[in-house]
């Protein structure tokens, strides 16, 4: 077994809206019941003032840190969450839940519809980032937490952070949106659409009704391969792969013989084992529909918000370029929010929020320390 400071962690489940009107979604439909899978690390203090919600990105899940029970697999942000780490579990109580529409324990298109006893497939309603956040708020209510010390996340996780800030400003002391945006750009939508079309074009997809037969593995794998290209940078790919060829290159015309090709195939193939193609469609669409400025002005976006803000961007991130983070800061300036922004000099591209942990740790550790201190002396 691998060494891990947090050790084995257990997934938990929270089900709500089982009776009554159900859980109201932005599309107008009600959904019932809703299950959220979540994990929690550290101890909630007596005053319940040390809770931090971590929001995951497109392909993430509730398993953010520690080793998953039975799987021996470290969490997706294990280098950032744990004893003595940026999100210090010796000080803070860390919660991470799988998003609504996901496929890792929370209600999503691959969940069983209790009425039909079959997976929902495309009968699962459309979800938005706001719906995901509303569901998280139910979980936070259930855990008895009035005010989160912080909400943090990168990429789509950052969209959830910003939604929390705009929708429930009274429920958080601070927010940490990383490598994210106030609205998805045409370029971001375009890449997601290519990914979705790869899934939809796979004959195994069968209008989303593939449960019980072969899943659209080719399509989902291709979507993931495209995604991975956008998460890296020209520099990081040059450094990681160069033009090196794989040793077992076979003399077939179109064999994936470059290292970079092999890497993409490997990542694509691995992804299919743990991710549902329909969830990919639903969640990527939620990202594309995300526009926090819809119906709001930049001036009005964070008006009256008292939370402290830490915005982090990465220099080589061309998928979520720093101008998008600066737009968040502009809204914060217009609302008079005390804020910190850093554009970290990294070559990792968008993936930097998962990899560039030294600088990220420094920024987050000191920021949280300050926020936690200021609520204690108040």
């Amino acid at each position, binding site marked *: 077994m691998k060494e891990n400071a947090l050790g084995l962690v257990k997934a938990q489940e929270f089900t709500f809206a089982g009776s009554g009107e159900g859980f109201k979604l932005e599309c107008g439909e009600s959904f019932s019941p809703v299950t959220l899978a979540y994990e929690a690390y550290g101890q909630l203090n007596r005053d319940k003032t040390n809770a931090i919600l971590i929001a995951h990105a497109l392909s993430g899940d509730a398993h953010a840190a520690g080793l998953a029970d039975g799987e021996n697999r470290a969490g997706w942000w294990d280098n950032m969450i744990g004893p003595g780490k940026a999100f210090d579990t010796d000080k803070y109580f860390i919660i991470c839940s799988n998003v609504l529409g996901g496929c890792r324990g929370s209600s999503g298109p691959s969940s069983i519809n209790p009425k039909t006893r079959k997976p929902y497939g495309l009968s699962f309603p459309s979800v938005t980032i706001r719906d995901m956040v509303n569901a998280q708020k139910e979980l936070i209510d259930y855990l008895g937490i009035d005010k989160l010390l912080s909400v943090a996340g990168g990429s789509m996780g950052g969209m959830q952070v910003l939604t929390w800030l705009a929708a429930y400003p009274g429920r958080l002391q601070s927010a940490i949106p990383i490598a994210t945006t106030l609205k998805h750009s045409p370029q971001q939508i375009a890449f997601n659409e290519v990914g979705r079309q790869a899934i939809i074009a796979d004959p195994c997809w069968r209008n989303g009704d593939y449960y019980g037969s072969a899943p659209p593995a080719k399509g989902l794998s291709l979507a993931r391969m495209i995604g991975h290209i956008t998460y890296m940078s020209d520099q990081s790919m040059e450094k990681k792969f160069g033009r090196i060829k794989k040793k077992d290159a076979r003399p077939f015309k179109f064999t994936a013989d470059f290292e970079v090709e092999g890497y993409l195939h490997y990542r694509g193939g691995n992804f299919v084992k743990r991710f549902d193609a329909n969830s990919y469609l639903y969640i990527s669409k939620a990202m594309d529909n995300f526009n926090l400025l819809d119906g709001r002005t930049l001036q009005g976006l964070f008006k009256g918000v008292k939370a402290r803000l830490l915005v982090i961007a990465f220099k080589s991130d061309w998928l979520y370029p720093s101008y998008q983070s600066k737009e968040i800061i502009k809204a914060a*300036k217009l609302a008079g929010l005390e*804020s910190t922004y*850093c554009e970290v000099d990294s070559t990792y591209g968008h993936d930097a929020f998962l990899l560039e942990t030294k600088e990220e740790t420094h920024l987050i550790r000191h920021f949280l320390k300050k926020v936690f201190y200021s609520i204690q002396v108040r």
Partner: protein
Amino acid sequence: MDHGNIPIDHRAILELIEKQTSVLDLGCGRGELMDILIKEKGCRCQGIEIDENAVYECVARGLSVLHGDIDSGLSEYADNSFDYVVLNQSLQQLRHFDSVFKDALRVGRRVIVGLPNFAHYKTRLQLFFGGKAPVTPSLPYNWFDSPNVHFLSILDFRDYCKSRDARITHSIYLGEKMRILLLPNLLANVAIFLLKAGTVLESG
């Protein structure tokens, strides 16, 4: 706090800023001034700094700092967003001196400017007798590596403020270790001005 550890220009600025006010420090460096303002005056401080490592030091001090250049950083703020906008030892390094100066008067109810005095007698002597670009305690750079792009004297800045309809309400002149009370344009290394938008009125 032991005031002996605080640089002389920071001490002067500290004097000019009232308690419990809001301050925007443009080119805040490692955040030393904001740190003192928070501890001594209970100010709410926001910094803007271009250097990434300086940003990390500010964050380690628990300060709010925005990584970026002063020009674009300032223009995004609404009118009268802060009680004070501080431009200490940074204005002379800005290519767009004029637009930043105007924006500072718009964003801050008051503006504090700290500048090295190019007409200090040592500068004059080095240039006149030595015939070389001067290097002094307040202008410590060689001509080839100086971050300064504007070289001005106290009198130059006074004229400039008049032309820009900025009122100097207070001036503090500093030598290396003490205040300068006589002939500041000749004897002061550094001048600290408190300004506000409005008609020119001499004092201090």
